[in-house]
């Protein structure tokens, strides 16, 4: 899966937390970011019916992130996501 460099959620290069997600060993700055990423992927799959996600692009910060996801050659799936203090999804809104 193609993601930004550094932590897959926030881009930070602090920390040294690794988690296997969808068969890939991925870097995160902390456990909460890893939880956020996993919860986000689960929600994308639930809403799109995709089995695999190939690319995630993220803009924004902890106040709210605009995410663009891709699977294969199909169109991007764009949404706004925000998480609570434990990494659970607080807001998930599709961008048309």
């Amino acid at each position, binding site marked *: 899966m193609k993601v930004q460099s*550094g932590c897959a959620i*926030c*881009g*930070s*290069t*602090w*920390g*040294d*937390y690794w988690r296997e997600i969808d068969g890939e060993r991925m870097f*995160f*700055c*902390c*456990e*909460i970011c890893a939880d956020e990423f996993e919860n986000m992927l689960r929600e994308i799959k639930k809403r799109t019916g995709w089995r695999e996600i190939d690319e995630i692009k993220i803009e*924004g*910060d*902890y*106040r*709210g992130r605009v995410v663009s996801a891709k699977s294969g050659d199909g169109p991007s799936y764009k949404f706004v996501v*925000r998480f*609570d*203090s*434990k990494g659970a999804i*607080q*807001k998930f809104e599709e961008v048309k």
Partner: protein
Amino acid sequence: MTKCSSCGETFSREDWDSLARHYYDFASKSDVSHVMWLNRYITKEKTRDEKELADLLERYFKLDNLSLGKWIRLKFIERFYGSRPHPFVVALQQPTKETLLGYVLEHQHFLRQWVRSCSYIMAKTDRVDVTLYELDNINTEFGGFGPERPSHYELLLRMGESLGLKRGEILSTEPLPDTRYCLGAWDELAAREHWVETMAAMHGLELIADRTLTEDGAVMHYFDPSILRGDKVTEATKNFLREGYEADVGHSKEALELVEKYSSELGMIENVQATFLKSIDLFHTYLLARLQRAEMLTKATTR
């Protein structure tokens, strides 16, 4: 003392090297609160070494020519009113009924904790001006001054009633988990920390409705003041918002003057800075909980 804003560990005054070593150690273990603090306040780029981080920390905390009160104002603006204002503040500019109800349902719990936090300050201080300030603040926020001047808490409940909720429904609604978490953390903070730090931690938050923040770079007010004139919101909502709009300038200003006076007299400016930053982190989470409540209400009505 220099103090870690995440866990409260203290170091000698202006010992940025030790503070940097401390953050570096915790970050290398991916400790959530230390990593997040570095990401949000200092940098998301891991520094070459501890020395480089120490320099960044020193630059961040050094007051240079600023007063402590001004430093607090500027950090507050950066966090809530900078180029990316807090989402709750954005939602409050032209609030929906659900946004206001989210405010009511969570903030009633905040105000109850507010009294406890201010009471800790009074219990710990031996300064008369501080006690008098807190008494006045508690009455304005919670006790009221008779039927002519109801408290902020009473005005909040009236706003909720004007938007269709019964008082009993409001009072029996439990806080959302993030609100509960923040209130617990503020309670612990007030119980544990020095009263000057608690003053900065709590009254610094009153800057949220301080309409003079735009003079120091805030990109917007807490809400669009034009809603106080039109008929987009209920009269009870106007009364509630107006009260904060008028009271909080004085509240935060006076409190920050006391914080400046006593933190310098007692040699604890850096402690105050660290504890204030911890408190605004909690406040960020708490404001999101208000928004979460609003979004839950919106979902329930559109279902």
